[in-house]
């Protein structure tokens, strides 16, 4: 809590900033505005952690309570598609930091390029997710009246004591968690598409690219949530 209310050097930058159209009137200088936006974004990310935290809590509690059924249900997920999507998200996180770097260096075309690639990678993730969901529909793994769960053998052909109802609970959580994550991906793709258009029009300069940075932070957080969802849903129950 040692942040000083007046940033050093604000007086010298003041005149320079008078020309900056992005500087809002109630801030004393661009640095203060940038710091405020950054802190605001981080606080928003904390709300996202707590938002997903409620579902992680439910997952934890139910996995402890219904271990065998959760293991059996988890083994029905496709590790291949999950791992591919994890890789896609990691690469997209790299393109996002490179976009921020391009913005900082004032390379407009490079910035637009990285943003477009990021959006494409995000869409790739969503398409793969769509195929996964379709598979769930085909195999009646979608919770509701049509739900069926008959796969009660593990990878080694051993019978697992499974309660299909509890497997349905697993898939409820699977859809709630991945669905909420996918919704955040869709929002992120929309956000970066808009930013790509703005960047193309030259809204950002080395002195002002806060929206790119903050959208990047959001994207990394969505990535981190997936980094946890992937092992929890797909991986950790292969051997029980």
């Amino acid at each position, binding site marked *: 809590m040692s942040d000083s209310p007046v940033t050093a050097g604000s007086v010298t*930058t003041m005149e320079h900033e008078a020309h900056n159209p992005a500087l809002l009137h109630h801030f004393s200088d661009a640095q203060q505005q940038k710091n405020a936006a950054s802190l605001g974004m981080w606080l928003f990310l904390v709300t996202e952690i707590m938002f997903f935290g409620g579902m992680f*809590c439910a997952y934890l509690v139910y996995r*402890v309570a219904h271990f065998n059924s959760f293991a059996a249900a988890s083994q029905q997920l496709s590790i291949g598609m999950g791992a591919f999507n994890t890789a896609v998200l990691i690469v997209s996180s*790299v393109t996002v930091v490179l976009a921020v770097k391009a913005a900082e260096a004032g390379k407009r075309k490079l910035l637009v390029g990285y943003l477009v690639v990021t959006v494409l990678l995000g869409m790739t993730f969503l398409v793969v997710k769509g195929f996964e969901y379709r598979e769930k529909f085909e195999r009646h793994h979608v919770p509701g009246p049509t739900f069926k769960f008959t796969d009660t053998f593990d990878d080694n052909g051993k019978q697992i004591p499974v309660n299909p109802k509890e497997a349905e609970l697993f898939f409820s959580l699977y859809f709630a968690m991945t669905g909420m994550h996918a919704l955040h991906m869709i929002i992120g793709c929309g956000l970066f598409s808009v930013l790509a258009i703005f960047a193309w029009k030259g809204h950002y300069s080395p002195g002002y690219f806060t929206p790119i940075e903050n959208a990047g*932070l959001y994207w990394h957080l969505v990535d981190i949530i997936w980094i*946890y969802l992937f092992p929890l849903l797909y*991986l950790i129950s292969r051997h029980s």
Partner: protein
Amino acid sequence: MSEHEEHTTHSQGFYLLIGAVLLVLTATTVGAAFVNLGPFNPVVALLIATVKATLVVLFFMHVKGASEKLTGAVVVAGFFFLAILLSLSLADYLTRSWR
């Protein structure tokens, strides 16, 4: 104006390196899932996930090397209160007699 004091980004090569490490860790965790480690399968998977998340937070989100510690404090606070939610909920579920 702020190019010098604000220069928190790293070189392109560094980012690619971190990205590569993350991909290797992903491959590792997938591989580990197929090895029977008994009760340690979840531990290893979550450990690797935490390492990956930490790399993203520190280097992609630039918490390491940030000019102020406040950002770090905000992140820690977020995970701290999440830990409260999880641990105190489990304090109930792990000690219930009906299971």
